[in-house]
């Protein structure tokens, strides 16, 4: 069963066709990279998959479950997690609280107005474990404002992983990071077990190409080339797009 199946997805804004009949099939455990020049429609594709945008036509399925009719919040419960291009965490809270919110999203407890959140030991422990996985245990109780950009990236990934996703969508996880920070995130991603399927959008070629097993190249809302790193790098059309820029 395909982990993520996108079939003939289309989306227009007014007269502008942003997504033009995209077909994509990601296998379980795969590391897929989506690249393409600015405006190719990569983030829009993610937004269509997570449900933040409704497609005009087409279908999305997660491990066989049809997502197209489901609201965004329901898709999270089916095992879909994502990170964003622009980091949008909860600035007034500690790192721990940020991750706990992420955990809470999948718990029935989130509706409970009578419990004490800070007394939920199990959530606390899972949050601490999630932060340890990304190497931020030391700063767990510090407010988010006291962290660097790179650390916030890692918190975001921790939050996404804390939900035990089956499919993880990463939108430009390396954007804005220093060389060292990139290495940290690279290591982190490499350490994610295979029961999580990862689809990544990225611009930074060197780092991303290393990561990916299969690459889909998008241009003007379509997937124009798909293949291994070697195949894609050698492809004439890809060269045109990137050299022509």
């Amino acid at each position, binding site marked *: 069963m395909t982990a993520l199946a996108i079939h003939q997805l289309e989306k227009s804004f007014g007269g502008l066709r942003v997504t033009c009949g995209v077909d994509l099939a990601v296998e379980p455990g795969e590391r897929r990279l989506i690249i393409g020049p600015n405006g190719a429609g990569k983030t829009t594709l993610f937004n269509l998959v997570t449900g933040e945008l409704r497609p005009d036509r087409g279908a999305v399925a997660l491990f066989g479950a049809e997502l197209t009719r489901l609201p965004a*919040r*329901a898709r999270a419960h089916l095992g879909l997690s*994502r990170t964003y291009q622009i980091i949008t965490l909860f600035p007034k809270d500690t790192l721990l609280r940020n991750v*706990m919110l992420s955990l*809470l999203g999948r718990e029935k407890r989130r*509706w409970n107005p009578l419990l004490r*959140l800070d007394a*939920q030991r199990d959530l606390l422990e899972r949050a601490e474990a999630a932060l340890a996985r990304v190497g931020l245990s030391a700063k767990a109780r510090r407010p988010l404002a006291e962290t660097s950009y790179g650390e916030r990236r890692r918190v975001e990934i921790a*939050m996404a992983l804390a939900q035990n996703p089956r499919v993880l969508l990463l939108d430009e996880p390396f954007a804005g990071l220093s060389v060292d920070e990139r290495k940290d995130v690279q290591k982190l991603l490499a350490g994610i077990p295979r029961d999580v399927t990862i689809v990544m959008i990225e611009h930074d070629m060197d780092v991303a190409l290393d990561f990916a097993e299969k690459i889909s190249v998008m241009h003007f809302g379509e997937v124009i080339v798909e293949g291994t790193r070697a195949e894609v790098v050698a492809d004439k059309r890809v060269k045109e797009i990137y050299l022509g820029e």
Partner: protein
Amino acid sequence: MTAIRVALLAALAALIAVPWWVPGDYYVSVASQILIYAIFALGVDVLIGYAGLVSLGHAGLFGLASYTVAAALAGGSGQFGAILLALAVALAGTAVFAALSLRATGIGFIMITLALGQIMWGLAYRWVDLTNGDNGINVASRPMPFGLDLEVATNFYFAVLVVFLLALLAAWIFVHSPFGASLAGTRDQPRRMTALGFHVWLIRFFACMFSGLLTAVAGILFVYYTKFISPPSLQLTSSAEVVLMVISGGSGTLLGPVVGAALVVIVKNVASAYIERWNMLLGAIFVAIVLFMPEGLVPGAPRIWRAVLRWLRANPAAAKGAAE
């Protein structure tokens, strides 16, 4: 025992001891008024501070509760029945209010709640058969829980104090609960909350209901306090005043609304003895707070205090001079 805990206990003790250190029944009833408005402000703060939704129409719900009590009593109902009915009607009204207002967030929410509040005022003013219009409805007597005569100012104050402390406790539990954290999350990052699996609209709706509950409680206490309800209590100015209370005290905190309520009520009742145009003063204070201390008095006071201390340390001569 941290300094804050000590201060809070002292404040609690002061509240309990009000009838003894406050000079006279008039001021005891001002204290009652402060607590009633504090409950109202807590209700509005649930939305402003924790949900990130500013409502300029809550006086409509407040008044709905007040009018229901007054009308029920005038119709021959018993006290307990009137209170229950008021809670039910106000909660039903809140549900409608929320369903309409939550069609938008941000500025749209402000505008819709303003309009809805005005509809409530308009009904109170013009549906004379139901509300007696501009003449208002009188409340003959206050309840007598456990035989306690609430007509006595001090007794009424203690009853209000008990309800206030319960409301504060309820708000505290709410804010520190998983639901409270979800609500705060929807305030800060609604998009991400949705992606994390939260039902943002429904969370906001329930927050509105809790806000409506506190508002209704305040409205019920209010009509027993003044023993009278009339359309001006539902006007835009009333909704604006409670927003003033929340913002000036500090939205997103529990003590902020209480401090803000005290500020506004004191200006209204006490300053009005010396200054005739106290609404101007209120407006000016509000503008000053929005400009210079937008987080409000409760969070902002430590900042100002620290700045004052720093200045004093840098200018020891001036401090000495002042001390002499």
